[in-house]
C-alpha cells in the first residue's frame, strides 16, 4: 500500500493515473482474465462468481454465445458449438486431421486459411478465439464500471510457433484489445509463483493444459525471471487423454463410427471420467446412444496404463529442456505444476519420479497463469514504476531458411534469448540470377518437409552477376513477443525485400481489417470514430511519455534540438484536438517520433552507462 507519494527531484509530482490493464489466459478448455487492484492480482469473475470461462463459442443464426451457455449445447448442437479451437490456431486442415483424428466439425480451407462450417457461415479459429477474448474484455470492462482497458498481456503456450503466436495476436485485434505483450504461459506461472514465494534459484514449470504441454526451466534471481530453456508439444494436452478414453469406450461398446452427437457425448463422458479418477479408484461410465445404454468400468490403473505413453512423451521434453538449459535434475529447487491436466495422479507421480522431488501442487493450477499475466500487464502500462521485475524469455523453436536440396539452415537456434537479431549471407548459384526465393521455416528437423513453413518471399531485382558474386544478407528479427520479421538485402546494390512473417495459411493484415470492419458494422459502431479515438489516445500516450522523459533528461538535448521536438509535440497535440481524419494524427505522431529519435538514442546510452557504473537506487 502506498502511504505517501514521494517524488524524486525533477520528476512530475502528479500522482500516477492508474491504468486498467489485464492479463488474459486464453486456454484450450477454459479462459480467464485477471487484473491488479490495490496491489493485489486477482481473477475477475462473471455475475455467477465463476472465474473460468469455458473456451466454447456457439454460433446461432445471427448471434453467438460464449462460455458455459455455449458448452451446455456441445452434445446437441455439435457442429455449431466450437470447442478447443486453440488447437486449430495457425494450423492447416491436413495437420489437424493428422493430429486429432475424428472431430465433430466440417473443416474447409479457403486460400489456405482454415474455417469451420457453422450455421452462421464459415468461422475461422482466429475469429472464434476473438469472440472468447471479446467476452473476457467485456467482463473486465464491466468490473471496471464500464471503463475501457488500456491493454492486455495475453498468454500463449511457450511452445507455440510463429504462426500460432500471430494468430493469437490477430484474435486480440479482432476483439479490440491492445496487446501489451504475448507472454509464455509457464513464464507467467513462474512470475506468480516466484513473487508469491520469494523463492530464488532454478525452478521447472511443468504446464499441461487442455491442448498444449510446456516445460520451462527458469532461473529466479532478484526479480529477474530468466528462462534458460523451454520445450513441449503444442498438440498434447488433456484433450488427448480424453481421446484415449473415447477409443476405449468405442472398443468396449463395439462401436466404430460415431455420429457427431455421439462423438461429443463420448468426449464429454471421457472428460468427466478422467476427472473423477483423480478422486476415485474406479468409475462406472454410462453411455446412452442409439437407444441403448452401455456401462463401461474404468479403473485408475487402467487409465494410467492408457495414459503412460503420453506422460512419457512429456518427460522426454523435460529431459531435453534440462539438457538445453545445462541443468541437472538435482539443481532444480522446485517443480511447479500448472494447467488442469496436472491434477491427474499419473502425471503427478511420474513428474515427481522424473525430477526426484515432490511437485508443487499447492498453487491453483488453473489461475496462476492469468495472475502472472496481470502482474506483467500492470507493470507494462506503468502502474508500478518502481518495480524491478524483468522477464527474459527464449525462442522455443529454431528458425531457419531452406537451402539447396530441401535442407534447412538454422539461423537462430531454439532457446536463444529474445529479442534477437541474426544475419546470414547467401549467394546466387547461377550466372545472371536476378531473383532469389526465400523460404522461412521453424523447427528442429533437418529436412524442409519436417519443419513448419512460415513464409515464402522473394528478393527481386538483383543485378545480373556471376554465380556466387552477389551477397544477399538475410536478417531475422524476433521481438519480445517472439514474433519474427525477415529482411533480405543484396549488399552491393542495396536491393531490399522485407516481410513481416505471416503464415501462408493465416490471415493477412487486410483480412483482419476487413473482418474488423464487418464486425463493427454488425455492432453498429463507427469504424472511423473508433480509429480516430485510437489515434487520439496514442497521441496522448506519446505526449505523456515524452513529457516524462524530458522532465528527467532534457539536458541531453541542446536548445535547438529541444525546440524542434517541442514544436513537433505541440503540432501533434493541436492535430489530435482538431483533426477528424485519423491518418492526420498518425502522421503527426510519426513526425514526433522522428523528431525524438536522437533523444531516445541518447537516453538509452545514458541509462546503459548508468546501469554499468552500478548507480542502482538501493546503493545511493
Amino acid at each position, binding site marked *: 500500500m502506498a502511504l505517501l507519494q514521494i517524488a524524486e527531484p525533477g520528476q512530475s509530482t502528479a500522482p500516477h493515473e492508474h491504468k486498467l490493464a489485464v492479463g488474459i489466459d486464453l486456454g484450450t478448455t477454459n479462459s480467464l482474465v485477471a487484473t491488479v487492484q490495490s496491489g493485489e492480482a486477482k481473477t475477475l469473475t462473471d455475475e455467477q462468481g465463476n472465474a473460468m470461462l469455458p473456451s466454447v463459442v456457439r454460433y446461432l443464426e445471427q448471434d453467438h454465445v460464449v462460455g458455459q451457455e455455449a458448452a451446455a449445447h456441445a452434445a446437441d448442437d455439435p457442429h455449431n458449438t466450437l470447442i478447443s479451437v486453440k488447437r486449430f490456431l495457425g494450423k492447416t486442415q491436413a495437420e489437424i486431421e493428422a493430429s486429432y483424428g475424428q472431430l465433430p466439425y466440417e473443416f474447409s480451407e479457403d486460400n489456405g486459411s482454415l474455417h469451420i462450417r457453422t450455421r452462421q457461415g464459415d468461422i475461422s479459429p482466429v475469429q472464434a478465439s476473438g469472440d472468447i477474448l471479446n467476452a473476457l474484455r467485456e467482463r473486465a470492462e464491466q468490473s471496471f464500471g464500464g471503463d475501457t482497458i488500456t491493454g492486455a498481456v495475453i498468454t500463449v503456450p511457450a511452445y507455440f510457433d510463429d504462426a500460432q503466436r500471430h494468430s493469437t495476436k490477430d484474435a486480440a485485434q479482432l476483439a479490440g484489445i491492445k496487446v*501489451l*505483450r504475448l507472454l509464455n504461459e509457464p513464464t507467467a506461472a513462474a512470475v506468480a509463483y516466484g513473487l508469491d514465494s520469494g523463492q530464488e534459484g532454478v525452478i521447472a514449470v511443468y504446464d499441461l493444459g487442455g491442448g498444449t504441454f510446456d516445460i520451462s526451466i527458469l532461473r529466479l*534471481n532478484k526479480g*529477474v525471471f*530468466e528462462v534458460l530453456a523451454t520445450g513441449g508439444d503444442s498438440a498434447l494436452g488433456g484433450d488427448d487423454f480424453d481421446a484415449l478414453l473415447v477409443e476405449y469406450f468405442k472398443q468396449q461398446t463395439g462401436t466404430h463410427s460415431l455420429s457427431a452427437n455421439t462423438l461429443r457425448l463420448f468426449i464429454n463422458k471421457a472428460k468427466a471420467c478422467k476427472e473423477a479418477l483423480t478422486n476415485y479408484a474406479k468409475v462406472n461410465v454410462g453411455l446412452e446412444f442409439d437407444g441403448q445404454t452401455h456401462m463401461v468400468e474404468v479403473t485408475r490403473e487402467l487409465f494410467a496404463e492408457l495414459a503412460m505413453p503420453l506422460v512419457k512423451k512429456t518427460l*522426454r521434453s523435460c*529431459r*531435453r529442456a534440462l539438457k538445453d538449459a545445462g541443468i541437472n535434475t538435482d539443481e532444480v529447487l522446485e517443480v511447479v505444476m500448472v494447467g488442469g491436466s496436472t491434477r491427474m495422479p499419473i502425471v503427478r507421480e511420474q513428474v515427481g519420479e522424473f525430477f526426484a522431488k515432490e511437485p508443487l501442487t499447492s498453487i491453483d493450477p488453473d489461475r496462476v497463469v492469468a495472475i502472472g499475466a496481470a502482474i*506483467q500487464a500492470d*507493470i*507494462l*502500462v*506503468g502502474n508500478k514504476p518502481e518495480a*524491478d521485475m*524483468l*522477464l*527474459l524469455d527464449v525462442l522455443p523453436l529454431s528458425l531457419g531458411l531452406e537451402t539447396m536440396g530441401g535442407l534447412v539452415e538454422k539461423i537462430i537456434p531454439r532457446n*536463444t*534469448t*529474445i*529479442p*534477437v*537479431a*541474426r544475419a546470414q*549471407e547467401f549467394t546466387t548459384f547461377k550466372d545472371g540470377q536476378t531473383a532469389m526465393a526465400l523460404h522461412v521455416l521453424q523447427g528442429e528437423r533437418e529436412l524442409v518437409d519436417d519443419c513448419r513453413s512460415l513464409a515464402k518471399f522473394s528478393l527481386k531485382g538483383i543485378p545480373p552477376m556471376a554465380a556466387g558474386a552477389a551477397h544477399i544478407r538475410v536478417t531475422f*528479427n524476433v*521481438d*519480445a513477443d517472439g514474433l519474427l520479421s525477415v529482411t533480405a538485402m543484396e549488399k552491393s546494390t542495396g536491393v531490399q525485400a522485407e516481410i513481416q512473417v505471416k503464415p501462408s495459411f493465416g490471415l493477412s493484415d487486410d483480412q483482419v481489417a476487413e473482418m474488423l470492419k464487418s464486425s463493427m458494422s454488425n455492432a453498429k459502431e463507427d469504424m472511423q470514430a473508433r480509429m480516430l479515438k485510437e489515434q487520439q489516445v496514442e497521441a496522448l*500516450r*506519446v505526449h*505523456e*511519455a*515524452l513529457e*516524462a*522523459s524530458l522532465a528527467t533528461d532534457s539536458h541531453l538535448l541542446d536548445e535547438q534540438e529541444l525546440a524542434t521536438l517541442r514544436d513537433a509535440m505541440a503540432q501533434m497535440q493541436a492535430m489530435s484536438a482538431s483533426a477528424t481524419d485519423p491518418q492526420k494524427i498518425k502522421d503527426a*505522431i510519426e513526425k*514526433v*517520433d*522522428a523528431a*525524438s*529519435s536522437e533523444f*531516445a*538514442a541518447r*537516453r*538509452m546510452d545514458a*541509462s*546503459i552507462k*548508468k*546501469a*554499468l557504473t*552500478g548507480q542502482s537506487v538501493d546503493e545511493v
Partner: protein
Amino acid sequence: MRYFELFSIPVNYDVDLQEIGVRYLELQRAAHPDRHSGGSEREKLLAVQKTAEINDALQTLKHPLKRAEYMLAELGVEIRGEQQTLQDPMFLMQQMELREELEDIRACGSASGDVDSAIARFERHIKELDGEYSNELQGLLASSDENDWQKAADNVRKLKFVYKLKDELERIEDELFDE
C-alpha cells in the same frame, strides 16, 4: 572491441563468466523493451535493437569458439563463414577416425548396452582436443604479432571441427534417447 566495451570488461580471451552474467542482467535491466513500454515507438524500437545486441554480445562472449572468432574478426582475420579447407593431413585423418567412431555409436544404437560407455569415451576424446587447441588461444590472441593471429585462426578452425563433432554427438544422443 565493441562487445567487450558494451559489457565493460577487459579485452581478453579468458573471461570471467560470472562477471559477464552480472553485467548482462544490469544491461538488460536498462535496455529491455519491458522497461520502455511507456516510451515512444522510436524508444521501443531502440530498446528491441539494443537488447538484441546485448543478447548477441552475451552469446558471443560466453561461447569460447564464437568469442575467438569475434576477436579474430575485430583483429581483421575474418574466418566466420569461410570455405577454406585445412591443410593438416594428420588432423584431418584424426577427424575421419572420430567420425567413424560416431557412426559406430549411431549404428549400435540404444539396443547395445555399452552405448553409454562409448559416448563417454568419445566425450573424453573431444574434451582433450578442445583443451589442446583452446589453451593456446589466450596467448595468441593477446599477441600483437599477426603471425600469432594466423596461428590462432588455425586453432579456431580445428576447434570448429571439434565442436561439430560435439553437436553431432548431441544429435545422435537425442535420436537414441527419444525412441
